[in-house]
């Protein structure tokens, strides 16, 4: 009986400091670099955001295609990669950015830039999650 309050008191602050451990993962996926910003890793977050947003913007500027549906397995993989961009993909689709089809060689590169930006964003979000859970130090 006497140990129960002590145990709760010891677990209380630890539980409070844990919070929602998936928040950096979700925030990092929705907005590139946001997961690291939440963990006060300002420089890393800024570099990640600049790299991923820059790559996505360059892809759009090269008339890259934003996958909207999946007719075959390659389209499905492209769509999965694009969805890794989180809100960037949603906003760009809503704004009508991105080409409907690839017309020139540069547009093909742009499509790859957009897909790879999405995959890099997923890697960055998982890194933020690992920092949050302590799996990765510093």
């Amino acid at each position, binding site marked *: 009986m006497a140990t129960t309050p002590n145990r709760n008191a010891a677990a209380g602050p630890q539980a409070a400091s844990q919070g929602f451990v998936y928040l950096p993962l979700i925030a990092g996926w929705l907005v590139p670099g946001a997961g690291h910003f939440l963990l006060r890793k300002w420089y890393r977050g800024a570099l*990640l955001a600049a*790299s991923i947003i820059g*790559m996505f913007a360059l892809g759009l500027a090269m008339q890259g295609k934003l996958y909207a549906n999946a007719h075959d397995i390659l389209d499905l993989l492209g769509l999965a990669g694009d969805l890794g961009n989180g809100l960037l993909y949603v906003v760009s689709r809503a704004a009508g950015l991105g080409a409907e089809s690839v017309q020139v060689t540069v547009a093909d*590169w742009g499509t790859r830039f957009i897909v790879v930006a999405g995959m890099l964003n997923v890697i960055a979000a998982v*890194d933020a999650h690992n920092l949050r859970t302590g799996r990765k130090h510093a």
Partner: protein
Amino acid sequence: MISPSHFTAVVLFALFVSTVFGITMRDTPRRMFRYGLYCFVMFCGSAIVLSWVMFLIAR
């Protein structure tokens, strides 16, 4: 619409990917920089080497 050359596209791709790889795959800033630089050189170097190989094969 921008139309970078093939080499410019390779360098930009390598720069962005190396930055993310360096930050996410290593723990300390020094090791992050070194690994990012290593990835950048490997990306650009392999693109140049493969380009020359394809050029020589096509002759």
